[in-house]
């Protein structure tokens, strides 16, 4: 940086228009950022950087050099005027380093559309043609027209950067300490961030009231889920945690008000005749023309479950029986063969009932 600065100063002292450069200072933002020399880019370009930095002012005008004018095509306007100006200025800087400037000059001349490019038409190439005087005269029409130099616009298609990901800032240790004054080491041993597995407040509340037997205290907030179809994971997690909650509860006990046969008795085989009949006719389905109450009575009758005043108790026995069959390894194997014949309730998994008390 220092070197560049010094070099810049040196450049200026060699300029014929020192004063006008000084006016420049307010706009000279760029010069501060003049890069330190680096290996990858040639010296020439760095020198030009300094030049550019010096010439960032509009007011800084200079007599254009005649030799530059020659190569510069006429009729430029707008942007190209700017170019004209800048290039002249740059050349001014070049002067204190003759070798380099010559090099630049020749480079640019080559590219200048005004000068004859390689392979351009040269009437001298055709002087040798053996033609009549009349045709020679005709040939003069060729050089009588001087082709215009057409200036073409340039268009910089800016390099649009890639999208920029965000990584966030670094912990600034602007954090509240533990109320008990102990070290929490957050931001030191671990990042101060919550862990990815956070308890579900609803589930945890249910847990807490379950454990403390204080059912009355909390109104459990159940959150609703937006776009559930897009978030099957959340639903699964919810079902999983609720069923875990239920599993953890003590098994349900029902106090029957009237005596009920025990399940083992009910699981005994039917008489052979009845079994035989079942091979021919199936058990009455729910399509039987009767209401639900009557249907329950029929099924309970078939299964030897007594029905008293309320059917609830009988139904409980019925489902207990079903659950017992369903969980029995023996009958499971048996049922594999003749699924359709058994009383199949299309429900997967009976939820463990809450503890019920009836009066």
């Amino acid at each position, binding site marked *: 940086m220092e070197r560049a600065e010094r070099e810049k100063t040196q450049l200026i002292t060699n300029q014929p228009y020192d004063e006008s450069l000084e006016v420049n200072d307010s706009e000279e933002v760029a010069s501060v950022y003049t890069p330190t020399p680096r290996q990858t880019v040639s010296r020439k370009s760095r020198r030009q950087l300094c030049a550019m930095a010096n010439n960032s002012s509009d007011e800084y005008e200079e007599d254009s050099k005649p030799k530059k004018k020659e190569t510069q095509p006429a009729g430029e306007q707008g942007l190209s005027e700017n170019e004209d100006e800048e290039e002249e200025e740059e050349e001014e800087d070049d002067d204190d380093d003759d070798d380099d400037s010559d090099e630049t000059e020749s480079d640019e001349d080559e590219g200048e559309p005004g000068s004859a490019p*390689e392979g351009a038409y040269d009437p001298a190439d*055709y002087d040798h043609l053996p033609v009549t005087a009349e045709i020679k005269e005709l040939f003069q029409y060729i050089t009588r027209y001087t082709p215009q130099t057409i200036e073409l616009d340039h268009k910089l298609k800016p390099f649009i950067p890639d999208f920029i990901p965000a*990584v966030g800032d670094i912990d600034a*240790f602007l954090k509240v300490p533990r109320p008990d004054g102990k070290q929490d080491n957050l931001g030191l*041993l671990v990042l101060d*961030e919550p*862990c990815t597995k956070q308890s579900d407040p609803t589930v945890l509340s249910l847990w807490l009231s379950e454990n403390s037997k204080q059912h009355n*205290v909390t109104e459990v907030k159940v959150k609703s889920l937006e776009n559930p179809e897009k978030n099957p994971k959340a639903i699964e997690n919810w079902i999983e945690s609720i069923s875990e909650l239920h599993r953890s509860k003590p098994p349900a006990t029902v106090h029957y008000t009237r005596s009920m046969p025990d399940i083992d008795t009910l699981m005994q085989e039917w008489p052979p005749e009845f079994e035989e009949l079942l091979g021919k006719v199936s058990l009455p389905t729910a399509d039987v023309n009767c209401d639900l109450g009557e249907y329950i009575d029929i099924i309970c009758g078939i299964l030897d479950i007594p029905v008293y005043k309320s059917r609830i108790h009988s139904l409980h026995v019925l489902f207990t029986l079903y659950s017992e069959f369903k969980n029995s390894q023996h009958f499971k194997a048996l049922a594999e063969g003749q699924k359709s014949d058994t009383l199949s309730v299309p429900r997967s998994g009976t939820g463990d009932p809450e503890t019920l008390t009836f009066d």
Partner: protein
Amino acid sequence: MILSRVKPAVGGEAPTSEKKKKNKGKKTPRVEDYLNQRDYLGSITLLEFQRSAGEREEDADLWLGYCAFHLGDYRKAMEEYKALTERSGCPADVWVYLACTLFFLGFYKEAEEAALKAPKSQLQNRLLFHLAHKFNDEKKLMGFHQNLEDVTEDQLSLASIHYMRSHYQEAIDIYKRILLQNRDFLALNVYVALCYYKLDYYDVSQEVLAVYLQSIPDSTIALNLKACNHFRLYNGKAAEAELKNLIDISSSSFEFAKELIRHNLVVFRGGEGALQVLPPLIDVISEARLNLVIYYLRQDDVQEAYNLIKDLEPTTPQEYILKGVVNAALGQEVGSRDHLKIAQQFFQLVGGSASECDTIPGRQCMASCFFLLRQFEDVLIYLNSVKSYFYNEDTFNFNYAQAKAAVGNYREAEEVFLLIQSEKIKNDYVYLSWLARCYIMNKKARLAWELYLKMETSAESFSLLQLIANDCYKMGQFYYSAKAFDILERLDQNPEYWEGKRGACVGIFQLILAGREPRETLREVLPLLRNTGNPQVEYIIRALKKWAKDNRVSL
């Protein structure tokens, strides 16, 4: 409340095991257990349950504030602390806690007011230090800087300021020094990795980060950084996969850094959903505005991009680059010299800076700067140095070919122009005219003529004709020059066109005599000449006919 020593959750142990254990043991859960897991939702739920159950723990409100704060729910924390400050007998330190929450909520003025009500403490000084940075108050910043002590927290806070001011090396120095004394401060590895990421050392960042992820494989901040490294090192797909992993392991109640993740998903998917996700994140995540600008630029909506960025005071190289790009695009679109000047200065600033001069964007900036200054030799120096990264990139090739053509290297310019795929560029007059010039300079005038034939009649096709007529003339390719002048003359009775056509027709004749053009071409010359009602025509035609007769060429 009995509190065991805080031991962070490290490695292996699945976070759910705590719940299971509690489940089996049926012990009353303790807040401390949740804090150890950094399960702040759990601890908050428990604290609130206890509160509603009437079990008033000591400092329950302070604990709630603490948990909400570390959960990142600064609003809830703020409400807790605010309620506390309104109570009589509130500890004075609560003011600085309140100030911290206000700081993270972006209420900087209010944060300062609250912080000043608290007694002097290291935390208060750190907060005021960062507030001074937010207010750009250098004098205050220096004051609070001097009050910083040689304790870990203060030093880390200082490092964080270095990071925000883009002084990454200084930050790394602090972290490395502290790490040397405290090898178990694993989190510092992530901070170092963040610095290396910002320094574009993505593989180094990845290495340092791995140290932390080995112990804490489910860290949100670390996994997000890993995804960002993947984005830079590989591509958006690889990055998205990494982020998806993070989303999958997070529970649905997890809200921390959700905005960051949504933002980065847009980035990794190449801008998909930008208009839905980014606008509300502007001024929350600093990159969101820049990305929206990039999105608009890619949609060619330069005006919208400009509106978004015009009031932004650039501080980072990315911001300077983007402002430069928008100004360059707009300046060229509306023909404003002021915008182009700004663009050129910003490009030069970035490209010339010590940190960016050797990066690809830095080189692109320098090239853009010289392009706007029309110094194409220099444009080429910079573009050549990065061209291996941009093979087949239309934008790069368009600029590169123009620069090559501008310095007279028409052969390579033509090759590069022809690599461009984008239809939009290929229909751009700048492309067409420069390619035509390259063709002519490379003695392929016929191809230039075909470019003209494919164009709709317009001011641009007229300009292209002039280019073909004159450039071909210059290059002695008189046949297409004559054809072009002929049409020009028919469109506009400018005597100059006649002179051009006359010269070109005679030129064809000369080429025939020199054996460089088939004699039959003469047949096409006569009608071209006859299209003009100038008396000179007859004289020329007579001469040509005479020669044809002498040389037995049938006309």
